């Protein structure tokens, strides 16, 4: 137990990497559903119906105070029970479903705040100008507001994706076998014998992905900061 086996660590990496597909599947599905939810919530918050906006803000407050793991279990236990009231049986559904649902809720909440603040960051005059030249409300949003707001939002979005990637590792707790789940299985199979090596291998995998995402973020920010001045002068 005391001896550290570097070769063993290296051997673990190829055993873990194939399970990244599940990790990324969770990530991509969550991004997709979370973004949709984010747009809906942001529209509610910015909209004129007080009930919907109160509801959306209450949701944000609740999510901000909920640990990911608690949310995950609430969904895992709560959703089937809720569905059974309406005579749906969700118990046989894949664990992936619950993981994606739980993380979509929290990611959607984060997205809604990002969308809202970047929308507000774009001057109101931009919308008025767009409408004044005959664009519809939807076109004004799609062609004028969205491109500008995206510039403001992108660094934050990438940051949130990074957080999502890391929080996603908790999916193992309900038994999803992604890269983290596989590492746990490997550790258990060896009766915890080489736990440290396996954990380090696992953290290097996560670390590498994070570094790649962060570098992409830096590049993007450089590109966009040029765009920013461009937007300003126009």
């Amino acid at each position, binding site marked *: *137990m*005391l001896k550290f086996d570097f070769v063993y660590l290296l051997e673990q990496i190829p055993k873990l990497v194939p399970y990244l597909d599940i990790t990324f599947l969770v990530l991509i599905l969550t991004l997709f559903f979370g973004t949709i939810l984010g747009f809906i919530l942001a529209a509610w918050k910015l909209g004129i119906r007080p009930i919907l906006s109160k509801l959306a803000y209450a949701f944000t*407050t*609740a999510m*901000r*105070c*909920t*640990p*990911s*793991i*608690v*949310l995950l*279990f*609430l969904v895992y*236990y*709560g959703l089937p*029970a809720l569905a*059974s*009231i309406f005579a749906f049986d969700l118990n046989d559904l894949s664990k992936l479903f619950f993981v994606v649902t739980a993380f979509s809720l929290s990611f959607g909440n984060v997205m809604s705040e990002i969308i809202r603040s970047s929308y507000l960051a774009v001057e109101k005059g931009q919308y008025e100008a767009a409408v004044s030249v005959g664009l519809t409300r939807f076109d004004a949003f799609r062609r004028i507001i969205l491109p500008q707001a995206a510039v403001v939002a992108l660094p934050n979005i990438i940051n949130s994706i*990074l957080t999502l990637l*890391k*929080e*996603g*590792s*908790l999916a193992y707790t309900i038994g999803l076998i992604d890269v*983290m789940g596989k590492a746990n299985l490997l550790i258990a199979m060896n009766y915890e014998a080489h*736990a*440290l090596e396996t*954990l*380090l291998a*696992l*953290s290097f995998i*996560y*670390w590498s*992905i*994070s*570094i790649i995402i*962060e570098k992409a973020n830096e590049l993007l920010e450089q590109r966009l900061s040029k765009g920013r001045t461009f937007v300003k002068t126009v």
Partner: protein
Amino acid sequence: MQTLDLHFMWEAFFIALSGAPITLLITVVALLISIPVGFFFSLIRLNGTPILDQLCRIYISFVRGTPLIIQIFLIYNVMPILLERFLRSTHSTLSVFDVNPIWYAFVVFSLYTIAILTEVFRSALKTVQKSQLEAAHSVGLSTCAAYRRIIIPQALVTALPNLCNATTNLIKNTSLCYALSLREITLRAKVAANPGYNYIEAYIDIFLVYLLICSLVEYGFKKYEKKLKAYQCLSA
């Protein structure tokens, strides 16, 4: 299963709440350690001190680039080994198994929060213009006095919302202490739910307790921020 067991829920709420002191203890200890260390690290990062800056960067990159749960597992695996060696070398009669897991929690969450706060302080200090330091020098303040009286108070105002975020995140993250078998909010309620399989009720309780604590913390920060922001009350 169709309806919630309200009686259990009522009781389990207080069981969950009884774990709050441990959660808060970890939070406070981690903050007390990471605020000064994080500040020191942020100065290293801002000054670009050779070697130390690189080490800080790697450290921060690792902590921010890997899931906290893995960091917890790592510490849980490494610390006992190191401790055992230390105890053996000092011929102590203590065994590693006597060590309360809360010590591991202190270590993990301090290491984690230091990395977060270093970045918080770094960006906050960057918002205070260099000319404020020059002005302080011009009226005869030493660099140290300038930081203490001019720069830090201003940086604190911009850092506060992030500091609040870091604190609530820290509180939420202590829910991962189940991995250390530490009986805090989550684990207590979960254990209480085991016999009757009342997991939904238990997790609703846990949710409520975190909601309560985090809301209080946020409220406190908002109040403090308002007080600090006095000088910006009528921003030009």
